[in-house]
């Protein structure tokens, strides 16, 4: 893969990755949010595949396929199954309205860019230049986790954080050791399963997955 083609493909994949995170903030309907999350998984797999093609590493290529299967296939399927049992599938008014959330996302982009300065200067390369994208998605994921009221939206926020960290890992050092990557993927999968199960139980007990109902434990 030639160098200019590598840079262009990498930038396109990173741009799509970031755009998916912004779309999760922009749209209200939970079904659309899950679909956008699946697209982000696709973009993440594309990032890893481009790096694999440039470094000519079969291990990274296999990892790209694994990421595609997990984050663009299995996790969205689990989320859709959890959504199928829910009633009205819209997001109840988020704590911060959509316009303010989007402007907040712009501020978070600036913060991520400022924080990742030392990271880029340590090893300047096309891949490291795109690290602010990963950090931005992590910050946007935390923002979604904190400002959304429905259980499923919080799960999507947590998964956005994980996607962002995985992207940062691959953009900085072409990943962490294989054992760790496997363990992390398993942990994420189990965490989502646990959260889905808890959400189902919450819906059975409280009648709806609006987390405003969970107010009994406080000091």
């Amino acid at each position, binding site marked *: 893969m030639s160098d200019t083609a590598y840079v262009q493909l990498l*930038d396109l994949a990173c741009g799509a990755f970031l*755009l998916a995170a*912004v779309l999760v903030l922009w749209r209200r309907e939970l079904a659309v949010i899950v679909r956008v999350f699946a697209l982000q998984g696709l973009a993440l797999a594309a990032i890893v595949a481009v790096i694999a093609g440039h470094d000519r590493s079969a291990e990274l290529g296999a990892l790209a396929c694994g990421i595609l299967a997990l984050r663009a296939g299995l996790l969205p399927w689990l989320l859709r199954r959890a959504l199928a049992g829910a009633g009205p599938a819209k997001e109840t008014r988020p704590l911060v309205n*959509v*316009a303010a959330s989007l402007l907040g996302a712009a501020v978070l*982009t600036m913060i991520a860019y400022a924080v990742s300065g030392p990271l880029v200067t340590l090893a300047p390369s*096309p891949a490291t*230049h795109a690290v602010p994208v990963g950090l931005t998605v992590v910050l946007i994921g935390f923002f979604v986790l904190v400002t959304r009221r429905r259980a499923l939206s919080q799960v999507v926020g947590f998964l956005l954080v994980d996607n962002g960290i995985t992207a940062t890992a691959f953009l900085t050092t072409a990943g962490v050791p294989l054992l760790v990557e496997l363990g992390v993927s398993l942990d994420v999968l189990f965490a989502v399963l646990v959260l889905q199960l808890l959400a189902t139980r919450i819906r059975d007990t409280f009648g709806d997955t609006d987390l405003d109902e969970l107010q009994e434990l406080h000091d």
Partner: protein
Amino acid sequence: MSGWTPAGVLGAGLQVAMVVAGAPLLLGAMRQVRARLEGRAGAGIGQPWRDLRKLTRKEPIRPRGTTEVFRAAPVLLVATTLVVAAVGPFLTTSSPLDRVADLFAVVALLTLGTVALALAGLDTGTAFGGMGASREMTIAALVEPTLLVAIFALSVRVGSTNLGAIVTSTLHDPGRVISPVSLLAAVALLVAITAETGRLPVDNPATHLELTMVHEAMVLEYAGPDLALVELASAMRLAVFLGLLANLFVPWGIATGAGVAALLPAMVAFAGKVTLLGVALAAGEVFLAKLRLFRVPELLAGSFVLALLAVAASFFLA
């Protein structure tokens, strides 16, 4: 590049002529496409020109109680749009007025037109005029930053905010068009232009219900030649915006050198690109419903964030 070359002067003059003459035709084509898709016969491409002719023959009439602002607004609107049509990189990038074709100057001129019309709406003292003016300014407050930031994102890599320079650099480096910066900026600009020119889903140009109007509400009190000027100006603004959108991202066909012979293919390319964009816009409108007014800031905030992301991407994505 600058300087009074014959090709440059001829190019600038032809640009103005094309925009003035072709804008109502563009509007007619868009209305015709929409009509055909909706199963109607349509009034034909020349209908806007026929309407303008009818309006200019009418008696000039002004409501009682209006001031110079009301009288000056249509003229100001047409004047600012003519200046932008003359300086923008539509047919040639070596126009003699190239130094005026700065990003901030062009957007400021277009905003001046918007503000003039809004003030005229307020000047009439009617309820609908005030309502239209306030809605227009709400939208403009979100759209102007988006326009500035989106085109600024393109200018970062060029190192200059001159529109002609941006177009020339894209001609020299075609690979830039599919970078995230260009794609994000294109989407942001498209949404901003839809809002600025009063097309669906922000404003319905064919509505006759006053409470849903934004642009039409401001010009309710205009009649006769004044109304003709206002209609011509809004058609020209649409043509100018679509021309900017086309040439900033797909500039092939534009004349760059001092040769007069390159102007003819440039005219054909410009007319083709703008017509294509207009027809696509009109076809898309058939499938969209107008957004409720309080949802419009959500859409515009989203396009602003996309423009900001384009700027951020231009700084750190290679």
